């Protein structure tokens, strides 16, 4: 009793600095934002305006779809890479990981500008697609949904890889060997053992990438151009260009509510994953 109370006190003391910063710099302004989104007289008008308009619902849908696509692409590309890096038995493994996280050292704006050059009609990426004959000769990736997915996936891929790497690294290789010595083919062992055990990392990486893509601003607005109808871009427009702050606050609140509910769902899944892995 006494000991547990002291432990609680220590925990509270350890948490206090972060909690204070969080409350001061996040919760407090966020509350102000909520208040601003509900002007006196018509507290729900801004929310009705958003939720009752198919255009704005479309913007929300676009953002969620973008988050989903980017998460899938980074997962599919990132998992094998993270697996290789985690299992590489070379002195260069550390360097390779460093190389993977290299893009994080460059601003997303700079990386997006680079993609813009590749995505113009005469850019390398667009030319490549044109030469396959799958698209029209004047096709360009700039200003398309696919273009935004590609650019954002590249921007966020290192985050997925680093998260997966740490988890895969912690999986005991003997478990895979045991599965294989019991007759499982390497693919089955990978599926039954490695991916199962890496589920926590997969979920954590996906959550990070999803929430970062849903709220991304620089890449969608640069690569998507004026045709980028995403949440963050809409908030920017309402805040800085149309000066409609109550509406911008309402959109921000809706985005936040969705992010929080996604995070909570993930948390539940993560908890289940841990249960299963036990």
């Amino acid at each position, binding site marked *: 009793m006494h000991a547990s109370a002291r432990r609680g006190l220590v925990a509270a003391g350890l948490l206090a600095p972060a909690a204070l910063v969080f409350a001061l710099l996040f919760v407090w302004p966020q509350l102000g934002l909520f208040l601003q989104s509900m002007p006196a007289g018509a507290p729900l008008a801004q929310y009705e305006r958003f939720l009752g308009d198919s*255009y704005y619902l479309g913007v929300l849908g676009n953002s969620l779809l973008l988050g989903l696509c980017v998460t899938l692409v980074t997962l599919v590309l990132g998992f094998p890479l993270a697996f290789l890096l985690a299992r590489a038995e070379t002195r260069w493994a550390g360097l390779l990981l460093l190389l993977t996280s290299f893009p994080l050292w460059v601003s997303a704006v700079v990386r997006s500008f680079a993609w*813009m050059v590749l995505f113009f*009609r005469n850019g390398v990426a667009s030319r490549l697609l044109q030469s396959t004959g799958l698209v029209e000769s004047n096709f360009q990736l700039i*200003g398309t949904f696919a273009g935004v997915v590609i650019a954002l996936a590249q921007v966020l891929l290192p985050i997925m890889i680093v998260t997966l790497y740490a988890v895969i690294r912690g999986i005991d290789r003997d478990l895979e060997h045991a599965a294989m010595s019991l007759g499982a083919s390497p693919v089955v062992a990978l599926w039954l053992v490695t991916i199962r055990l890496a589920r926590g990392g997969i979920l954590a990486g996906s959550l990070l990438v999803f929430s970062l893509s849903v709220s991304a601003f620089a890449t969608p607005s640069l690569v998507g*151009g*004026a045709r980028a109808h995403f949440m963050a871009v809409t908030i920017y427009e309402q805040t800085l260009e*149309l000066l409609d702050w109550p509406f911008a606050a309402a959109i921000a609140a809706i985005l936040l509510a969705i992010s929080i509910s996604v995070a909570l769902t993930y948390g539940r899944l993560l908890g289940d994953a841990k249960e299963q892995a036990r």
Partner: protein
Amino acid sequence: MRRRSVLGAGLGAAALPLAGASAQQRFAGREVVATAFGGPSQDMLQRMVFDRVQRETGARGTQTPLLSANAFARMRAEAQAPQIDLFMFSGGQHVQAKADGLTQPLPAQPHFANVPANLKDPEGHWIAWGLVTEGILYRPDKVPNPPKSYRDFFRPEFAGHIAFPHITNGYGTDFLVMLARAHGGSETNIGPGFDALRRIAPRANIFRSAAEVQTLFASGDIWIMPYDGASAMRSTNMGIPVAYAVPEEGAPYVLLVGCVARRSRNADIAAAILNGHLEPEVQAAIAKDVGWAPVNTATQLPTDVAPFMAPTDKLAHLDRDVINASRAAWTDRFNREISR
């Protein structure tokens, strides 16, 4: 003490026109504070205008960088006791300032007469000293037959090679209005503009920021866009061939205006400063270095600068009140109909 020497001012007004430091310094010991747009233009104006006025009249001039909207807020807040004498606006704030009684008439100056009547207040409360002239930018190496009208955006050879700014960029709004005008509409009847834009948009590149203009032209893919002449000049200086055409419907423009706070006691110095801005050689230097077109009709522009500016008799005067009042509605419609 720092305010004025009544005697000096009286003598100065009666004295001969400025004739260098040796002449009677009519504003000796006084100071004037002006807002500025910052950047290279501020340094240049300090050198060519403020320092020169100080040499010739003895009045020390200070510039303080302030964006137009902030400057207007300051003008209003300090209406009773202005800390700033001369306000420079680029967003049309001078009209509101005069309407709100925040300005005062300026004493006439030699160069004021050379500014066309529609670029200065009939009662002398404000006067323009520069213009950002808009029009049609194109790649002369790809477009042998220069565009002449906003209707030329429909020429078949331009399909797939057009870019235009988003409506939240001021030039994007002006493009919409000019398209409306070219198709029988106007600021108050914007429908034809949206109809025209809807036909151009599907194969056009819609961009948001000024930084993209050079990238778009440099890509080789974009041959024509509505923007300002100064951007064409910058691109050309960077080695990307971009020419500027004044459309036959006229060139929309952004006015750079000076006006003096109503309670300022330095209207006489401020007027001399504005007169300094309007010196033909200063006007030409502003045009060459910053890209702002001259309003003094006596200005001779260098041949490598003139093609990027619209002359004052080719301007299209847009109704900014209607445009500002419609901005939110037009942006909404643009998002739904044009930038799909």
